[in-house]
């Protein structure tokens, strides 16, 4: 029983990561994919923070002072994973913001944010160009549609 509880956190981290991965693969909606990527990241955060915990430990902030010397009430959790994850969370929101900006630009040029529809539109454009005897070039397509 204690053995199961001892690695329970690591199981949940795997489950969260896999839920995120499933979302990224299975959902064609780009916003849903961005959210799923966030879930994947929180799974990894959970993994790091779980490793930092020590039995009977407390938050790593020095507290008690007696006669000018430090007296410790117990062991402290390892602060290093906290530091790593603290910065990773802020970076993850930056990643989300850039992803959302790209999604807005995609919506502007394609009119949809479903990945499969975008792919079909690209494919159809290529087909038309191929039939017209031109070399297919995806970058020019998007540009032309944007100005149209």
């Amino acid at each position, binding site marked *: 029983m204690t053995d199961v509880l001892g690695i329970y956190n690591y199981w949940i981290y795997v489950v969260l990561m896999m839920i995120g991965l499933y979302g990224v693969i299975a959902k064609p909606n780009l916003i*849903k994919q961005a959210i799923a990527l966030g879930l994947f990241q*929180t799974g990894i955060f959970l993994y790091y923070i779980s490793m930092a915990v020590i039995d009977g430990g407390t938050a790593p*902030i*020095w507290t008690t002072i007696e006669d000018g010397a430090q007296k410790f009430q117990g062991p402290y959790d390892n602060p290093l994973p906290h530091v790593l994850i603290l910065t990773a969370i802020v970076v993850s929101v930056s990643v989300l913001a850039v992803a959302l900006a790209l999604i807005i630009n995609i919506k502007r040029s394609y009119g*949809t944010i479903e990945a499969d529809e975008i792919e079909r539109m690209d494919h159809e454009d290529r087909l038309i160009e191929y039939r017209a005897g031109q070399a297919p070039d995806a970058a020019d397509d998007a540009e032309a549609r944007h100005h149209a």
Partner: protein
Amino acid sequence: MTAVVLIDTLLLLLVTVTAVAIIEVRNLYASAMLTSVYSLLMALVWVNMHSMDVAFTEAAVGGGISTILLIGTLVHTAREEKPLKRRVHGKALALTALCGAALIYGTFDMPRFGDPKAPIHHFRVPEMMAQTVGFANSTAGKQAPPAGFDPLEYRSFNGAVPSVPVDPADTAWRETSVLAQHGIMLPKVNGHALHPAEPGHHLHPPDDFNGHVPNSVTSLLAAYRGYDTMFETTVIFTAGVSLILLLRRPRREGYLQRSAPLADQAILRVVSKMAIPFILLFGLYVITHGELGPGGGFQGGVVVACAFILFALIFGRPALYRVLPPPVCDLLTGLGVLMYSGTGLACLLLGGNFLDYAMLDPISPGDGEALGMTLVEYGVGITVSMVMLTIFNQLAEERSK
């Protein structure tokens, strides 16, 4: 089974259920709101695991900013997901099940949750916890490892790490500062006696934690991993710049002068007017208080940004642009990064290493550390708050043409 494990078990079950709901619900607004719930649950999980700074960040970033960003995007993209032909994607499910099974097989080799003998609690931890990074002398008694464990054995695990490289009594190099040689910033002894245990330090009043910063998370963030944090700040700065490049329209088109739809709601207006000063004050407190308690530049910066975003939501963005014009916002974004690297450069000029804060006050290095970390935290705070605000502005600016 301790209370930590029990609460952890229940909270993580809730978190998993929320995660499934986020992925499976078709309405994207509902999905965004569930993301907020998920982040708040996660913040509780972090608090339960004594990771206060991370909980703080998660609540401010996940519960606040990212939900606002998602909703801001949904307004001009789509509210609903396209209905799928098949509810369950068989191949993806098989792939994730396989991958998950492999990872779970790997977890059987992990040290058990909270095990004091896990390597992570020993390797380099004496140096880290004693905060002797700049001095490299392991001060005795800061945190004793559990019985039966020899920290030296763990340190020798990596032959490249020297255990005690320099003579801690030799502090002459600290007194030779470039500026001091030219008569600028001459070190003064403010009646401090030498610290008996740490020759490089001077005795401080008892509330001074022997010149060390009490919140070890902040101290690791700004000193031990100072370079890392500096470039994380740069990453955030880059995100702000990318948002401007991707979405900002030319100035000549002017900013969209939309009326503020919520400004005629008396309750919202009055309550937000009362709340905003306190949110700002709290944000500044969190940044300034970062070395003493949970908090720091990242968390405080996000809280400050939240105050501005609330103002923009209630009174409209034109009002925000009058308070904080976009050019000023852009300038401040860069200023934060400059402040961080400038502090590092100042330490270099004073005769120390890059980001060696002790050099800011060579006679009492503890005060120098506190000063340097506060400066750096303010740099991070300014950049983070202004980038979050820029991101919000750019996403909200983008209206359907």
